[in-house]
């Protein structure tokens, strides 16, 4: 490299390191957030189902109470 190898390889080395860190952190961050979002979205319908079940149970018991009172 004509005695300038240190300057040339340092330039390419710095670029490689900076871009690799940028690519890796970007991919890791995207994967972590999309996993977290998928987990939360998977939980949300379960909570809704549980709420619905609780609501159904409450309605059923409300209906059952007057019937019990009549007996």
């Amino acid at each position, binding site marked *: 490299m004509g005695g300038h190898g240190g300057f*040339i390889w*340092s330039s390419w080395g*710095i*670029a490689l390191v900076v871009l690799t860190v940028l690519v890796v952190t970007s991919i890791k961050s995207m994967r972590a957030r999309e996993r977290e979002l998928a987990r*939360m979205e998977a939980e949300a319908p379960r909570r809704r189902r549980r709420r619905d079940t609780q609501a159904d149970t409450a309605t059923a018991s409300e209906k059952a109470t007057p019937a019990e009172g009549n007996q």
Partner: protein
Amino acid sequence: MLHRFANPTRFLRLANAVLPWATGLTILLIGAGLYFAFGASPADYQQGETVRIMYIHVPSAWMAMFAYAFIAVASAVGLIWKHPVAHVCALAAAPIGACFTLICLTTGSLWGKPMWGTWWVWDARLTSVLVLFFLYLGFIALANAFDDAARGEKASAILALIGAVNLPIIKFSVDWWNTLHQPASISRIDMPAVHTSMLIPLLLMAVGFTMLFTVLVIIRARAELADRRINALRSARIHAETAHSGA
């Protein structure tokens, strides 16, 4: 056309379709650029082998300016039409632009020492690129400085638009002032002052970096959109729990 992609779902559909192609092109173009930069291009008759720094320095400098122009346009679209995806794209592009600017500054310094005999001079070109780097850092800091994300977006978008005045200063600094940095060699009205054997790796690296920029903006925008959805779900959950306990 622009309004169609203000919808995050539609934007993500397009982005996910583009991502594998852009990734493939990035690998192909940068791979070919590296081959030509080190294997199939000659040493310069004056600069010798140090000319190989040009193939990383010049495309990084172009990307540093392109990324800022992208952020300024996205910020303007976000401010004028209130497109949420435009702000997301601007935020996604800022760290990428900052990294390219950092590469441009460090490789320029490493090229300057053997060719000019100095690591740094406060000439107009070098100083305006350093200002660009600080504008990137300011944009990122301002966007994250508020609890209310919308206020951060607005403040950083205004900074991006004001800072855009630095782009023509960078471009024309070598013509307006006496600088140690050389004037333009590629984007000239007449023919480029670079031989084809050196122009090929330069352009391959430049287009490869543009593809890399596209890939990274998509990845970071996906992360940002997922983050916003997570925050919305958390807020909805807290709201629902507060309402439930209140009842």
